[in-house]
């Protein structure tokens, strides 16, 4: 009996270990398949037309610049909304709100994170964009700005939860030290707590931006889907098209193995690399902050 027990133990341990390692396998597999289907682009479309500002696949114009600028404009707008609102809410929850308020706010913000993006896109079409069209006197309400507003909302929960964690992990002694020196709570927040949580707050912003770049359904539904090169701030109020929306909108209609198909995978590869870079940097910031905290506390 003991023998069979040790065999069972051995097999279970191996299975658990394999599951742990599977995360690495999946990232590798995703990257491999993006490369496999995306890299042929480089031999089928030459670099100069790829970096062109005309995206019109039916006539074999595969310039991805308008898609990249489209993503940038929408994401930038989203960040301008998500950063102040996200950090402000995090400061409110962690430093100002009474306990009962915190218990209500945290699940509510989590709830926003759980709202399907397609529902937000749906309301964007029916409610937000008609309102903006009238309110801002635009020819159409389906603009980059509409996308930014909704994407900002989608990024807020990420920013709030990471920033709130960072503020929460600032040792209480820091605050008490500042109060003992006669600083008000407000001065303490600005001059002690926020600076001490700087790296965590920065991580929050990065992860929020990462979330915004990758968002698909909402932007596809509300940004008007016009692959026009964004050149100025004015583009914020005209229709654009992002990288994610392009993949989502066109992949269904292309023939497998065609150039168009390869280019869409190529765009996916670019998105993958962007999120890889954002997350590696964000996590290294977290690691460094953690190490410093350990050094201070020990």
């Amino acid at each position, binding site marked *: 009996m003991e023998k069979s027990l040790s065999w*069972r*133990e051995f097999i279970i341990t191996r*299975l*658990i*270990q394999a*599951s*742990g390692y*599977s*995360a*690495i396998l*999946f*990232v590798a*597999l995703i990257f491999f*398949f993006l490369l496999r289907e995306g890299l042929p682009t480089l031999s089928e479309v030459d670099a100069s037309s790829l970096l062109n500002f005309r995206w019109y696949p039916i006539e074999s114009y595969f310039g991805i610049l308008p898609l990249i600028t489209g993503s940038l404009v929408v994401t930038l707008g989203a960040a301008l909304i998500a950063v102040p*609102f996200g950090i*402000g*809410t995090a400061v*409110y929850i962690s430093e100002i709100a009474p306990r009962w308020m915190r218990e209500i*706010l945290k*699940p*509510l913000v989590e*709830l926003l994170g*759980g*709202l*399907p*993006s*397609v*529902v937000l896109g*749906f*309301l964007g079409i*029916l*409610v937000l964009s008609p309102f903006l069209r009238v309110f801002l006197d635009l020819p159409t309400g389906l603009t980059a700005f509409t996308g930014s507003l909704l994407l900002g909302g989608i990024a*807020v929960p990420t920013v*709030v939860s990471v920033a709130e964690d960072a503020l929460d992990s600032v040792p209480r002694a820091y605050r008490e030290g500042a109060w003992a020196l*006669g*600083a*008000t709570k*407000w*001065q303490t*927040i600005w001059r002690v707590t926020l600076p001490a949580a700087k790296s965590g707050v920065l991580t929050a912003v990065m992860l929020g931006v*990462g*979330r915004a*770049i*990758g*968002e*698909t*359904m909402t932007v596809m*539904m509300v940004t008007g889907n016009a692959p026009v090169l964004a050149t100025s701030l004015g583009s914020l109020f005209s229709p654009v098209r992002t990288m994610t929306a392009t*993949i*989502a909108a066109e992949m*269904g209609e292309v023939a497998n193995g065609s150039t168009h198909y390869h280019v869409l995978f190529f765009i996916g590869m670019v*998105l*993958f690399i962007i*999120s*890889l870079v*954002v*997350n*590696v940097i*964000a*996590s290294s910031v977290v690691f460094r902050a953690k190490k410093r905290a350990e050094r201070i506390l020990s």
Partner: protein
Amino acid sequence: MMTKFLSRNRHTVQRLGFSVITLVAVFTVLPIIGTVIYILVKGGSAISWEFLSGFPHDGMRAGGILPAIIGTLYLTLGTAVFSVPLGIAAAIYLSEYARDNQVTRLIRLAIINLAGIPSVVYGLFGLGLFVLFLQFGTSILAASLTLSIMTLPVIISTSEEALRAVPQSFRTVSISLGATRWQTISRIILKEALPGILTGVILGLERAAGETAPILFTGAAFFLPRLPHSAFDATMALPYHLFVISTQVPEMPIQIQYGTALVLLVFVLTMNVIATVIRSRARARRQW
């Protein structure tokens, strides 16, 4: 500097600052509540037994949304079948077995990256690997597998947190009584971490249930006049259906659109509320 620091009006500054921050928080939260209430109100009138149990007809402009509801159920269950055991096992590895070395750090980095990959890129990956390379076709199976990998990071990180919260002394005592590592995990640690794990699983599946982009090219069907017969069939799904009827079908009755949004929202919110309730009840009952 000192005078500025201690100046009289600093309390006025504080009052002003607090008001601004509070306003910011209010403006963040109000739209969330507003969105939910708005959809509940606008969609409420569309809900009827026919709507929930009927098939769509007249080019989806009439009838019910049963195939989309059932499809989302299938996809959520299919996702659970793959991601729950794998995610919990990976969490057990990280919390109970892994040593602090390079490989473990690489695993953690991989999990962080999985969490950050755009959902539409998961869709591309699923198309490349499951639909085409493994020839599962556009099917519930391919879509569930794609959604599973996407949900893994949520399940792993919340489950690991729950496992780590179980006091170390339980492990030491159990081992000292002659238990193997796995006996300790299966008889004590998992049981104690269960509410936390369950919360993580539900939150992960909630995300899968609401996602559209990963299933666009892996398993979602525009319109099916019947329910799927097997895991190799494509299926309708609530989020994709909402996308279709709000953008692809002209002259779509607004009632049906709001009704569909409401059903999807209730589906997802129910999971969210269940997860929150499990978590807070477990916290209240916990004895360690």
